[in-house]
Each structure stands twice: as C-alpha cells, then as structure tokens.
C-alpha cells in the first residue's frame, strides 16, 4: 500500500513529540522547575541554552521537553475518556433505541449547543486547577461527535446479516455490541479520536494560558506562553518555542487523522473537511 504524505509527515511529527516527551528526563539539560537562576534570566538562544532562558533564568528547551509530557497526557487520556463515553452512549442508543435513544440524542444536541471550551472552563471553575481537573474537564466535554458517529454506525450495522445471526445464536446485547458492532465502526472512531486529541492539546494550552489549567511553575506549554506575554518586547524567544511545540504536535495529529481517514474511510477522500 502506498503511504500517503499526510500520514507519513503526521506520523513523524507526532512520533517526535512522543519520543521527546518520553525521553525528557534524559534529553533535558536542567530541571524544568527547580533550576531557576536569575543570573541567566532572558538569555537568547545559543550554544548553552538552545532555546534561551525565561524571566526566571530557566532553560526553555528543558521546559518545552517536559511540557510535551503534560500535553500528551492530557491529549491522550482526555480523548480516551471522550471516546469511551461517546462509544458507550452512541452504541447503546443506536442498538436499544426507544426512550434511551431519545435521551442520548437530546443530551448530544445539548452538548453541541455549548461551546466545549466554555463548558470546560465552567468545570475548571469548580475544580482546583491541575492535571486531574483538566483531564476531567476536557474528558467530559467533547464526546458528542463520537457519540453521533457511533449511533449512526450502529443504526446502519444492526440490520446486517452477521448481527442477526449473532442474535439467533443467543448472544447477549452487550456481547453483540462489543464483538459484532464495535470492531466494524472502529476505523472512523480512531480517526475522530486522533483529530480530537489535537483539539484536546489546544484546549489544554488555552485553559493553562488563561490560568485555569496547569499552574506555574509546572511547564505546560500554555502556561509558559502566558508567562511569556510580559517579556514579548525584551525576550520574544520565550514565546516562540512553546507555541511552536503546540503547533507541531497539533499539526502532526491533524495530518495523522487525515491520513488515517484516507485509509480507513476511502470514500470520504473527496468530501473530507
């Protein structure tokens, strides 16, 4: 099979970020939180500090590497929560129908009416800022698209011969959903999940930028950018590298999602948006 350019580039970009995050303790030059030294404040990029230093004299390169761990954790875990919620609700609503389907469809429409960042912001308001709160806020607010997709796929799949055969063989509803329906809708769900991961990385950065996500001194890319705002005139490099890291991660995930869609759902190639 010919590998498409978007899949290849996206895969390389995302793999680079994953490796950087995993090996951050080995690759980083200094401790991202503790090693502040005002003697080296706002040093421009150079041989000693590859990406320069921030206002507290911390090495930006080391902080960007460690920031990858936070962004990837939030992106992967929150999207996993969204996918599990969306698939469970959509699959069961499509399969059982009736009042449960009406309830889930109503809830999905409701979720679509509230902008997800605003909803996440409201949830962050009642929780204390931190990684766990972020995972909850972003994991509960972005499942509606997965739910709709799972419901629509279930509706079209449940009349297929193999599902009817499983029913005749006496399979339980849960077993039919997990072994007959779920594997056949996995392709589009993986695509939505990959694209959603990029959205979650952006949302985490936005909330941390607003001071409602990961709090300083921990090196989240969003909070690093929030800190960098005050030094934009004297030390613009403090803003450049964390933003570039977010851009590369999200671009990688978006390209990967597009590439996977071309392979897993070839019919959508022309109607892709």
């Amino acid at each position, binding site marked *: 099979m010919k590998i498409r350019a978007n899949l290849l580039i996206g895969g390389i970009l995302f793999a680079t970020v994953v490796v950087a995050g995993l090996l951050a303790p080995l690759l980083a030059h200094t401790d991202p939180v503790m090693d502040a030294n005002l003697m080296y404040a706002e040093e421009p990029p150079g041989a000693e500090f590859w990406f320069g230093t921030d206002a507290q004299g911390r090495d930006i390169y080391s902080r960007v590497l460690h920031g990858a761990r936070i962004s990837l954790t939030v992106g992967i875990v929150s999207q996993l929560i969204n996918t599990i919620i969306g698939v469970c609700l959509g699959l069961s609503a499509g399969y059982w129908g009736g009042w449960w389907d009406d309830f889930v469809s109503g809830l999905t429409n409701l979720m679509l009416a*509230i*902008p997800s960042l605003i909803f996440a912001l409201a*949830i962050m308001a*009642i929780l204390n800022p931190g990684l766990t709160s972020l995972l909850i806020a972003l994991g509960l607010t972005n499942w509606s698209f997965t739910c709709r997709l799972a419901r629509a796929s279930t509706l079209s799949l449940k009349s297929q011969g193999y599902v009817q055969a499983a029913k005749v063989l006496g399979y339980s509803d849960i077993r039919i959903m997990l072994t007959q329906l779920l594997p056949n809708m996995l392709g589009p769900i993986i695509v939505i999940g990959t694209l959603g991961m990029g959205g979650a990385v952006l949302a985490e950065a936005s909330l941390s*930028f*607003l001071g409602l996500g990961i709090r300083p001194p921990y090196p989240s890319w969003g909070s690093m950018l929030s800190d960098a705002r005050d030094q934009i005139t004297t030390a613009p490099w403090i803003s450049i590298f964390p*933003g570039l890291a*977010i851009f590369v991660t999200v*671009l990688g995930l978006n390209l990967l999602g597009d590439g996977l869609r071309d392979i897993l759902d070839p019919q959508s190639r022309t109607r892709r948006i």
Partner: protein
Amino acid sequence: MAAFLLRRLLQTVPILLAVALIIFILFSVIPGTFASSMSDDGRSVIDVQVMERMNKEFGFNDPVYVRFGKYVAQLVQLDLGTSFRTRQPVTKVLAERMWPTLLLTFASMLFSIVVGVPLGFIAALRPGSWVDTVSMVGAVSGLSLPKFWLGLLMMYLFALVLGWLPSFGYGDGSLRYLVLPSIALGVAPMALLARTTRAAVLEIMNADFVRTARAKGMSERKVVQWHLTRNALVIVLTTIGLQFGTVIGQAVVIEKLFSWPGLGSLLVDSVTLRDIPVVQGAILLIVLSFLVINTLVDVLCALIDPRIKYT
C-alpha cells in the same frame, strides 16, 4: 416563513432551560460560596457574621431546588440576578460586554469567509494543482495553530516592531483595534471553511446534474455560477453557522490576550472570582447567541435551496 422562524426560535427555549439547569447544578456543587472564596484568597479575612449575612442575602442557605426554582422564575422575567462582585444587575454587566464580543466575532467570521471560501473554491476548481496543494497545506496549518500564540506573534510584529497597529485594548472600537484580534480568531474558521468549500465543490462537481449541464454545452462560467456555487453554498452556510459557536467560545482566549472588554474576558474574570450569577449569565448568553445564529442560518439555507422545506 415567519411561522417557521418562530417555531425554530421557540425550539431553543428547552435547550436554554437545560443549559441553565446544567450550569446551575455545576455551580451548586462548588465547595464553598463566593463569600468563603473571598476569605480563602489569602488577601482578605471575612468575619463569620458578615459571611453569614452574605450567604443569607444571596440565598446560599436555601436548598438547591429552591434556589433553582427562584433562578428559573427570575430567568423567565429576563432577570439574571445580581453580580456578587459589583452588586450590579447581571443583565447590565452583560449588556456592556455583549457588543465588543459580537463585533469581534462578526469581524473574525467576515475575515474567515472572505478569505476561506474563495480559497476553497479555487482549490477545488483546480484539484491537484499547486494552488490546491498550497491552500490545503495552509488550511491544515491554520487549523493546528494555537490562536493565542498567533495573536502574540502578530502583536509582536505588527504592533511592537512595525508599530502599524495598537497592541491591545478596545480603544474607541475602531477598525485599527479590531484587526489583530479578529485575524488571530479568524484563522482557524478560515482554514476549516477553505477545506469545507473545497470538499463541497469537489463533491458537487461529480454530481449528475453538473455532468448533464456540461454535456448540454453550458459554458463553464454558467456551470460554476448556477450549479456549483448555489449547491455548495448550503453546505458552506451550515459550516459558517456552526463555526460561529466555536468562534464565540474561542473568543475567550483572544479577548484575554488582547485585553478586549468582551463577554469572554468577563467570563474568565468571573470564573476566577466565583461570581456565579455573571458566569451563568455569560454562558447562557453565549449559548443563546449560538442557537439564534444557527436558526438564522437554517432559515437562510431554506431560502437559498428550495428543496429544504419549512417544516
């Protein structure tokens, strides 16, 4: 037509009530109240008696269902309560902030439509060409850019280095102040619109009626004008409607970055200070704007495409 519009607008009422309920429940489980959070901030100490009086005044001692009942009764009378912080009516606080947000949202959507739709159209008319490749690479990059980073970089270049535009603030609300925030906010919807338009036009180009029109000898200009544009417009309009909601939501970050005095910055400040009536009001207003805009887009789609019935 008027009945259709009225019916669609009435359909937003249960959604708004449900959103009000969700937001109300969410803020009812907050450990502590505004009064206690004021004393928790490490700067102020509130006397127990004062806190008790505030709790009584704001009704925090009532059971949750009583508070929700009172809240809905107020809501029906378009009364969103009183701000804990400024003691002003929430409707007044929101009214002051609504216009800057609408201005920013419409300006960024205008930018995204004016740039994104023609870009997608041109790309679709020459699939596989360099124009197509460049615009689609640009589109996927635009979707991946963090808005506040783009805003920060533009602020640095155009305001601080070149000095062409003001770096932040609302000023007198003139175009100069609007340019940077609206472009920063509009890049992502622009990218999505370019991709949607391209996809819609490509799909319609393969439709039977377009092939028939060409086979009849219709000129390419007329095919594009009569068949492609009108049919693609419905899909593009629907995307524009949905993007409005996202843009109003995302405006929070851009408003905070550019110190824009809109609903978003009010929401973030009120969240930090736990000014719950303002947070509830701002979220309701954002959801209402989203629903109304989508209803209007639906009506517009029905006007453009006679196949869509007023049902």
